[in-house]
């Protein structure tokens, strides 16, 4: 047997980093969640539904979902300017678009729902980790949803297809494929790719990312179940 390929951090190609999701981590938010994926540490907060301002922007048949993906200045090894970059604006848009597929916005016409995602420490694959936390925060806020949304990435480094792309692999790798899905409805709601992949490699990477997403989905379920199981020790009030 040939020696198995190991990645920079010792992982096998199809091995995820360690992960932990916690729901209901902020007292003030209507819903919140935190994800740790490798060294990623990301917090998501949901406020609303609430009145939308300015009034002329209001949608009369559904709520507006606002989404901000933001990296804190200290989240990366080189300080990042706190001003939203073009990358952050684009990611906010694709994350919002993915969450919009799951949230039943029609329940709250003229209102808005705010999703704030703060990357406290970045370690590769932040967008899919962010969306995974945001979906848990939405469920925690009691926002009606058709399904959760969960994301995972795959990539290619030194010619090998890998799952859950870490920071080094993101920088040095040949391709990056972040996806997010609605796990029960089996729909892809975020799909981006950069780098180079043949059709065959794409298929392999896509399947690996899917598998990773379903693993994280189990963790989302655990996080939400613990919210209810822990009710006795949690502060039960909201919207004071």
């Amino acid at each position: 047997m040939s020696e198995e390929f190991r990645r920079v951090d010792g992982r096998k190609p199809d091995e995820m980093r360690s992960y932990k999701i916690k729901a209901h981590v902020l007292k003030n938010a209507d819903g919140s969640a935190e994800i740790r994926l490798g060294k990623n540490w990301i917090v998501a907060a949901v406020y609303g539904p609430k009145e939308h301002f300015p009034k002329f922007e209001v949608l009369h048949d559904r709520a507006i979902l606002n989404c901000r993906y933001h990296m804190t200045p200290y989240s990366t090894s080189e300080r990042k300017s706190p001003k939203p970059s073009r990358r952050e604006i684009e990611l906010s848009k694709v994350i919002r678009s993915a969450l919009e597929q799951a949230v039943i916005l029609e329940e709250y016409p003229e209102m808005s729902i705010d999703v704030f995602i703060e990357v406290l420490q970045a370690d590769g694959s932040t967008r899919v980790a962010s969306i995974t936390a945001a979906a848990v925060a939405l469920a925690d806020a009691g926002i009606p949803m058709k399904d959760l949304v969960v994301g995972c990435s795959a990539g290619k480094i030194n010619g090998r297809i890998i799952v859950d792309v870490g920071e080094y692999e993101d920088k040095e790798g040949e391709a990056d494929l972040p996806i997010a899905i609605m796990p029960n409805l089996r729909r892809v709601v975020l799909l981006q790719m950069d780098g180079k992949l043949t059709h065959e490699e794409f298929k392999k990477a896509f399947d690996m990312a899917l598998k990773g997403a379903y693993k994280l989905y189990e963790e989302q379920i655990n996080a939400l179940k613990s919210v209810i199981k822990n009710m006795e020790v949690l502060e039960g009030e909201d919207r004071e």
Partner: protein
Amino acid sequence: MRGEGFRGLTLSELLTIKQVEKLFSEGRRIDERGFLEFREIEINTNVIEKAFGSARVSLGDTVVVAGVNFELGTPFPDSPDKGILIVEGEVLPTASFGAEAGPPNEYEIELSRVVDRGIRESEMLPLEEYVIKHGEVVYKIFLDFNIINDDGNLIDAANLAAVAALATAKMPDINYVKEHIDELNSINIKEVPKVGVKIRDLPIAVTLGLKNNKFIVDPTFAEEIAVESLITITHTNKGELCSIQLLKGGLTFEQVFEAINIAYEKNIELRSILERNGIKVI
């Protein structure tokens, strides 16, 4: 996207969207096109004399102009041995009733980043050859494009204009600049003798819309509003994928692969149109 929530649209735009929806339900498209048929494509290069390279592309009624400029600049600290490529696109206020002047909104940012990604990830330009002095002076290439008239499928049109402008650009001869490295401050980059830009690849973006579980290519503006999902898939010269962006809605797992196959077929078609205009990888 323009027209989200049916705002900022003229009555005729609104009526067109309704018409598109009705025709889709009958299995038809508004301009009698087949589902997998592009609108007429017209490519004109070197349309702007003052730029190093330029192109005007029309895709049906969508019109894009792209221009290329070279400057001397300092490389990014994490890639001291590479030239810099900056791709930025904006929708001009001329483009439609709803288009606004001002800083680019998130859709414009997405548009330019998707075009950027195709060019960058396909490694179309040999950026590592654009180094004049390691870590200090490199070529900084600006690729700017503008939507002059918006009738949908801005990404495919902008991608065609961008690659056409780059592929036909005449760049300042780097050997000349290197020979005059001691007089860099007095060099006027516009006056340096010019040579053709060498390209290694041609990324081709194909955007598909999904309505009633059927794919269409090259959606018009009204079709973009009417479809449930939109995805852009970019292929390299060798048929590899080099960029994907789900722009709107969602797809089933199977539809992802269906979309890739269609995009591959259409990419070959667009490539041959570029070739007819003398644009190809040598």
